[in-house]
C-alpha cells in the first residue's frame, strides 16, 4: 500500500522524552504513591476506624485520589501519551471523561436504591442490618442430620 511508506516517517523516534532519568523518576513516584496508599490502608485497620465514619471515608477518598495520580503517571509517562500531539491526547482523554459521569451517576443510583429499599422494605432492612449468628459450615449440619 502506498501509505506504508509514509509511516516510516513516524518511526524515527518521535519521543521527545522517555529517557532513563524520566523512567527512574516516575518509577520512584509510583512506588512512593503505592507505599503511601498501603500505609493509609494499614492505618485504617490499626486505628480500627468505624465503617461509615468521616475519618474512614476521608482516608478512602485520599486513597482514591492517589490511585488517580498513579493512573496519570502510568498513562502519561509509561505509555508516553504525554509526549504525543495534543489533539491525539484529547481523542483518548476526552472520552475517558465520560467516566466522571458514569461513576457519580451509578454510585448515587446504588445509594438511592439502598435508601428506598430500606424505607419500603422493613423486612429486608431488619434482615440485612441486624446482627445474626454466623452461618454454620455446611458439613457439620449435614453430619448431624446424617447421624440422626
Amino acid at each position, binding site marked *: 500500500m502506498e501509505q506504508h511508506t509514509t509511516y516510516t516517517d513516524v518511526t524515527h523516534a518521535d519521543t521527545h522524552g522517555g*529517557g*532513563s532519568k524520566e523512567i527512574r523518576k516516575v518509577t520512584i513516584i509510583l512506588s512512593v504513591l503505592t507505599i503511601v496508599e498501603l500505609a493509609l490502608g494499614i492505618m485504617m485497620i490499626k486505628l480500627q476506624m468505624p465503617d461509615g465514619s468521616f475519618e474512614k471515608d476521608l482516608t478512602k477518598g485520599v*486513597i482514591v485520589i492517589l490511585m488517580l495520580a498513579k493512573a496519570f503517571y*502510568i498513562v502519561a509517562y*509509561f505509555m508516553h501519551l504525554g509526549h504525543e500531539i495534543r489533539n*491525539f491526547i484529547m481523542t483518548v482523554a476526552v472520552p475517558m471523561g465520560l467516566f466522571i459521569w458514569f*461513576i457519580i451517576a451509578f454510585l448515587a443510583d446504588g445509594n438511592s436504591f*439502598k435508601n428506598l429499599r430500606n424505607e419500603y422494605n422493613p423486612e429486608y432492612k431488619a434482615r440485612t*442490618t441486624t446482627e*445474626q449468628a454466623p452461618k454454620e459450615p455446611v458439613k457439620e449440619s449435614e453430619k448431624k442430620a446424617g447421624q440422626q
Partner: protein
Amino acid sequence: MATTTATATTAPKYWGGGKSPFNVEYGKVMMWYFLMSDAFTFGAFLIAYGTTRFSANGWPNPNLVFKSYPFSGENSNAPLVFVSIMTFILIISSVTMVIAVQAGHAMDRPKVVRNLIWTIIGGLAFLSCQAWEWTHLRLDEHAWWGMNPFNNSNGTVGHQDFTNFFFTITGFHGFHVFSGVIINIVMLIKTLRGDFDKRGHYLMIEKAGLYWHFVDLVWVFVFTCFYLI
C-alpha cells in the same frame, strides 16, 4: 522527514494527506483505541461492583477476608501483605517493559531481549500469585462464584455478590495478564529472530508495551477497589 524545507515558522501540516495526522503510526493509534474500549469494559465491571456495594447494607471487610500468603499456615492475619507484593511485581514488570521499548528506539537488541525476559518473568510471577490466591480462597476458605462464606462487617450473612465480583473481575484481569504474557513471548521470539532489525524499527514492542501498561493500570484500580477501600 517531510518537513525539512523552510516551513519552520508554520505548524506542520498534518491533515493535508499523505501523513499520519497525529504523527503516530496507524497500529499504535488502533492499539490506543482498543485499550479505550477495554478500559470501558473494566470500568463497567468496577462500577457495577461499586453500585452493588453502595446498594448493600452490609459487605465483608476485605481485611478479614484477604489475610494470608503462601506458607503462612492456617491462622495468619496479614492483610494487604500478599497483594502489595503482587502490585509491586506488576509495577516493576511495567518498568522493565518501558526500558525494553526505550532500548527498541535505540535498536539495542540485547537490551530489548533482556528486559522483555524480565517483563515475562514478572507477568508469570503475578499469575502464580493470583493462582495461589484463588486456590487458597477456593480450597481453604470455600469461597467461589455462588459461595460466600464471609460474613458482612455488620454481622449479617455475607453478600452473595462479594465473591461473584471478586472472581469475575480478577479473572478477567488475570486473563488479560495471561494474554499479555503470551504476546510478550511472541515479541521476544520475534526479537531474537531479528524480525525487528530487518524491519528497521521496534514499533511492535511499543504496541505490546501499551497493552502491558494497560494491564498494570487496571490492576491499580482493581487492587484499590477490592482490597483497600
